[in-house]
């Protein structure tokens, strides 16, 4: 089976989707001739032509706004916003337009659209290249929000997102692009080629939206995580020896409550982990869902580990980043309660 980095898997997903459906178009800042600042669209313009993969002016509003018009026409745009930190000029188009078009027109117009964005920190990108804005999208009715944690899922989820009839926010943890980063920033980085989830089937397959995956089975405590934090949680379990069951949500909305609840009812304990700031983060939703559905199975309060409620700093990256030590402490606290 081919081995791919997350970048290669994402590129392969778009390649497969464009090859199968002439209506799939890919565009954004620097994505055409150059192939994207992270090289996720490399070669697509050469292969499919400038009318299917092209560069745009630096206007996230324009990228998403035109993509909505194209989606309504009948195309399936898969656009790139260069960093999730830059999506805000497009936020009105996403929230007021893309998310509501099907509903407000009673299905006369729809918006099959994927907005890809590199998300998260760990690359010394400072405030403008490190944010995790997923909660700004999960809070909006009419949007699906996806965060893959590995190449195998990334390809299958992206193809599923492109084939989905509704708008999908596709957040790509940029620290995972080249390897499964577990938060031990002082250790050598492994490559996806040495990881089983770097084995990515050629051709078409999908990973269904709305289905979580138990990444590590365990008996002691459930960890709900997504993106980079899945790997951080695995490191925390290894470091502490706590037998954590790690649920990789993969899709935040629609969320897979069945898998979440089954795990928490089994372990009786739960820690929610995300990189994004704590207050009103998606972890708050997860924590509420767990207590609503699993209250009588809980033996400890639901714990949360998240980014601090500060802007993402530069020099203090590793003080800010919720690494394995912090997650490990939260696991230990959940076990002690």
């Amino acid at each position, binding site marked *: 089976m081919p081995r791919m980095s997350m970048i290669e898997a994402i590129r392969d997903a778009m390649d497969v989707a464009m090859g199968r459906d002439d209506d799939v178009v890919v565009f954004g800042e620097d994505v055409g001739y150059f192939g994207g600042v992270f090289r996720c669209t490399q070669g697509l313009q050469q292969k499919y032509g400038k009318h299917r993969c092209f560069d745009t002016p630096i206007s996230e509003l324009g990228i998403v706004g035109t993509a909505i*018009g194209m989606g309504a026409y009948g195309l399936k745009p898969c656009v790139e916003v260069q960093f999730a930190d830059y999506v805000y000029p497009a936020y009105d188009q996403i929230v007021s337009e893309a998310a509501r078009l099907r509903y407000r027109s009673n299905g006369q117009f729809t918006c099959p659209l994927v907005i890809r964005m590199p998300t998260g920190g760990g690359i010394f990108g400072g405030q403008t290249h490190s944010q995790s804005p997923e909660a700004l999208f999960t809070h909006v009715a009419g949007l699906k929000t996806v965060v893959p944690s590995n190449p195998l899922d990334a390809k299958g989820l992206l193809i599923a997102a492109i084939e989905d009839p509704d708008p999908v926010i596709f957040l790509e943890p940029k620290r995972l692009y080249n390897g499964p980063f577990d938060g031990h920033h002082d250790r050598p980085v492994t490559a996806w080629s040495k990881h089983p989830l770097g084995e990515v089937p050629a051709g078409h397959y999908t990973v269904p939206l709305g289905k979580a995956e138990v990444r590590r089975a365990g008996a002691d405590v459930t960890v709900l995580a997504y993106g980079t934090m899945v790997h951080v949680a695995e490191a925390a379990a290894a470091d502490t020896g706590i037998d954590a069951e790690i649920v990789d949500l993969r899709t935040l909305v629609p969320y897979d409550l069945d898998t979440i609840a089954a795990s928490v009812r089994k372990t009786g304990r739960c820690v929610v982990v995300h990189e994004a700031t704590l207050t009103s983060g998606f972890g708050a939703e997860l924590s509420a869902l767990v207590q609503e559905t699993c209250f009588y199975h809980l033996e400890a309060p639901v714990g949360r580990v998240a980014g601090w409620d500060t802007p993402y700093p530069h020099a203090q990256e590793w003080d800010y980043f919720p690494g394995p030590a912090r997650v490990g402490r939260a696991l230990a606290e959940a076990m002690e309660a």
Partner: protein
Amino acid sequence: MTDAAPLRFHVPEPEFRPGDTPDFSQVAIPKAGSVRRPEVDADPEAIRDLAFSIIRVLNRNGEAVGPWAGLLSDEELATGLRDMMLLRTFDKRMLMAQRQGKTSFYMQHMGEEAVSAAFRKALMPGDMNFPTYRQAGLLIAGGYPMVEMMNQIYSNEADPLKGRQLPVLYSSRDYGFFSLSGNLGTQFVQAVGWAMASAIKGDSKIAVGWIGDGSTAESDFHAALVFASTYKAPVVLNIVNNQWAISTYQGIARGGSGTFAARGLGFGIPALRVDGNDYLAVHAVAKWAAERARRNLGPTLIEHVTYRVGAHSTSDDPSAYRPKAESDAWPLGDPVLRLKNHLIARELWSEERHKQAEAEILDTVIAAQKEAESHGTLHSGGRPSARDMFEGVFAEMPAHLRRQRQDAGV
């Protein structure tokens, strides 16, 4: 240190406020027929002057004159008059219905009927408008059933949008009328995207964007122009300058620019100003721009110079911010009266036939209204079900919405 005077902060003001006597005699209105009609493939650089003039066809004597005249048959002109009269009557009845509590809100077109009614006649089946809330003439002139519009305004059991949208935010794919958002300016750039898609697919359809003078200040307007310019999108971009954005006069959005049309020049987009109260002029300019788009010559920006005679909406009171007589003083006249006078001057119409047509149109509108009201109004009779509220958020209802629908007990 500097010897310059202290800085002064500048806030533009309209010339006339309540109590003033409006006088527009200083507004330069070119004579009908005086503005040239360039070839559709003219170099945008060679027609920059058209962004500072006003293309007009109907003169004071009701004659159609100049190079933009002569495109419409007698029958088409009579239809145009009827469309505008229908829209005006429709507005009157729906304003009354709102006052009677049959709906929550309404927005009328008084004075601006020609803009959308005439423009619609320059389009082909399959073309798509991305309208604002003051272009219902696109639907009326396009033959969309009035009763469907009323069902939407009443949010009744037959509302094609199932009660989800504020009154007048219509949607009809089949009639080339994109779902109205209600957010200002957002759809201008979507029109460009739709047009880009048509070009990507090698199709023959064009898109038409609409925006008000006030909303040109939104970033969406500028994004639309740069994308339309870069990709030479087959789109006609319309600015309806009706002088007032609720209480804010057009100078606040226009700033130091001479005209709104001039905004197109920096993008290399041909920009024309047209007398928005002149049915023939609007139609002729629309035809010119649509042909440019269809012949792969790219976008056109049109500023329709008109005047919002009525209130912004049923929630607005213009007497608080502008003189009552301002609309009478407005130099471009009334679009219905001007087309009527043209038809009379050509002996195609008479006062008598006009009165007769008014009565017939009123009967037609009342009949549609009765039919719509048989399906309910906002607060009485048939209404969309609470269950409908949960449908259509996604193509397939996800589990969390199913649970919420159960919780709601519907």
